[in-house]
């Protein structure tokens, strides 16, 4: 092929690919809820499971007739999930792409906290501020959990657990039920936004609940050697050890602790690590690890939801992250119906504003473990309980009073 012909072919392919959209041209009426998050890469499981949960919720809704739109007609709920690969640039691109669709009026996501912060940053900060050229599109986050992000913009809403509350509760419980534990040592994964920020909370709560903070060990997300850190831990010989890290380094540290015979009386973990990943990597060493979480299959709805996700694809489970996505779809369905959202191309701008105002006006939502409260800065007050790793499974250790 000549160079010119090759170039022409390439140009055509490129333009064609840019124009390919994901919308379906179905005969029946559809209403779309978009989602975006990390579907590939090391943390790809979060986005994949969120999408599965959203599709499970949509399937249940569609089975019972679909969503009633503003003009009384029934529409089938469709989920469209974009991959942002946990990078800020692609997250921004994904949001821009969603916002430019004429059938998009709300999106669930992102999954990574380091994407959420820039994505919320490009939204309009205060509604009605005409001098602010930020994007005007409501987001209802399911997974990105770094503290305080929703306050960045009035278009950002989150349904993530408040780690400040959960760790306060767990350390109060430890103080009440195990008063013989006196000292605390922390371990933190320093270069991941979520684990680093949460560790501050963990340390503070441990200290204000009577534990003497002896110190902390630090490591990085892709470290391969934890012997120095665990040796410090061993020297300190604290009663309670808290590890604020994700499954890979949590397992690395736990295995090193087993090697060096470091056996604290109590192990506390990071909320995100209360998933199958940790048990897949190091079930034996994680035995007894207690983690506060906002999901466990303890209520009927929770169990049904877990089954529904597995029906979408057996390799996916339900955990605290995609449970929020599941809840969000149902919440949004209610809001669409209550606020008579039309979901038509000519009403789409108004729909976005309606949706944002509706999300802001919510006082509480229905969660899988009970009612979820809302705060003034657009965060959630989720019911939580404590789970413990026992023989390769997460079992409920305690359900505190909320």
């Amino acid at each position, binding site marked *: 092929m000549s160079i010119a012909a090759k170039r022409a072919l390439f140009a055509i392919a490129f333009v064609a690919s840019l124009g390919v959209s*994901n919308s379906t041209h179905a005969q029946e009426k559809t209403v779309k809820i978009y989602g975006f998050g990390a579907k590939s890469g090391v943390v790809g499981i979060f986005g994949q499971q969120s999408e599965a949960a959203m599709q499970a919720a949509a399937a249940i809704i569609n089975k019972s007739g679909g969503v009633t739109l503003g003009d009384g007609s029934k529409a089938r709920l469709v989920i469209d999930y974009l991959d942002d690969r946990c990078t*800020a*640039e692609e997250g*921004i691109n994904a949001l821009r*792409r969603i916002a430019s669709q004429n059938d998009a009026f709300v999106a669930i996501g992102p999954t990574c906290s380091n994407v959420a912060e820039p994505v919320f940053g*490009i939204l309009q*900060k205060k509604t009605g501020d005409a001098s602010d*050229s930020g994007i005007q599109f409501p987001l209802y986050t399911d997974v990105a959990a770094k503290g305080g992000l929703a306050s960045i913009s009035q278009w950002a809403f989150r349904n993530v657990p408040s780690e400040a509350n959960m760790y306060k509760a767990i350390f109060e419980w430890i103080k009440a039920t195990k008063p013989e534990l006196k000292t605390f040592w922390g371990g933190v994964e320093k270069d991941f936004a979520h684990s680093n920020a949460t560790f501050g909370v963990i340390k503070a709560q441990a200290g204000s609940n009577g534990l003497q903070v002896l110190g902390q060990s630090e490591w990085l997300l892709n470290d391969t050697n934890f012997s120095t850190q665990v040796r410090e831990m061993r020297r300190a010989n604290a009663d309670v050890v808290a590890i604020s890290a994700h499954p890979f380094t949590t397992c690395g540290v736990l295995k090193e602790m087993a090697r060096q015979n470091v056996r604290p009386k109590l192990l506390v973990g990071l909320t995100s690590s209360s998933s199958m990943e940790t048990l897949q990597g190091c079930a034996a060493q994680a035995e007894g690890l207690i983690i506060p979480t906002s999901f466990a299959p303890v209520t009927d709805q929770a169990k049904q939801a877990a089954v529904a996700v597995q029906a979408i694809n057996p390799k996916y489970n339900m955990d605290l992250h995609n449970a929020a996505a599941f809840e969000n779809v149902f919440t949004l369905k209610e809001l669409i119906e209550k606020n008579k959202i039309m979901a038509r191309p000519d009403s789409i701008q108004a729909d976005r504003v309606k949706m944002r105002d509706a999300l802001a006006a919510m006082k509480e939502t229905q969660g899988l473990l009970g009612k979820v409260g809302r705060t003034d800065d657009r965060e959630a007050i989720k019911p939580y309980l404590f789970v413990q790793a026992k023989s390769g499974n997460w079992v409920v250790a305690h359900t505190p009073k909320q």
Partner: protein
Amino acid sequence: MDFYLGLAQVIGIHSLLGLSAWCVLHTGQVSLAQGGFFAIGAYLAGMLTSMFQWPLGYALATGAVSACAVAIAIGFPALRIKGLMLVVATTAFAEIIRLFFFNFKWRVAGPEGLVGPDGSLGFGGIRYFPANGWSSFELNALIWSLVAMVMVLLAWLDRSRVGTMWRAIGEDELAAQCAGINLTAAKVSAFGIGGAIAGLAGGIFAHYATHIEHGNFGILLATFAIAYPILGGLASLWGTIIAVIFVQGFLLEGLRFLGEWRSLLFGVLIIVVMIIRPSGLLKASLGMRGRLNKAAREPEYRRDQAKSGTTDEVHHA
């Protein structure tokens, strides 16, 4: 429409990054440090506008100049090392910069609480563009006028003596030295100019994303930076732009419909492009620019192979 404008902004920022790498690659130095200069420009420009309310122009210029200064400082020791060692040394340098910002904390009181880099938690609140009501169109105009400015500058340099010096050193250092070319001046100037362009790109990126953290400036970014000129072909500036459009527009955004397979295909397609067009997508330059770049030839790295004389056989591994 807003999406395409947004994509154009990303392509513009990456084009600047690619052009900065083109500069340095042209003299035969493979430098993975462009990510580090990008980071310096990003943090500095971001800090100046969000913490000290500087106007954007001055902030971007300061970012670019500082990155240039650091690049020149790096350029001198880099003279002593070549090839793979330079690759590793520049990687190490970029990592040092990233780790510096990983530890860097400086927060001042802003209108709504503390603002400033917060170490490993990142640096948010760089909301100059949305807060001042810049539309997507205006932002694009800014970015692409900067790209055009840089391209004109580089094309002019390429036509002039400087460009000839750079290309000569890129092809054969020893011969260039024998011809009386000042190796130090050429290499350091290439490094410096490349650093300035990368710093400029970084400054714009910080304002585009409104939140930056150390993770944005890792080895992957540096690899992308040199990938653009290599994929596009070192012979012409337009090659770099085409490569950026190819990677950002086609591979990353255009292939979204492939879902999970997009990421897998990304690496595979890069390999395919390199096998099919080892000298880059654009071997010769496009149209009018071709006359400007007429003297530019593909650098041929025939270091160990004895010239094969009359036959033009190509050696395979």
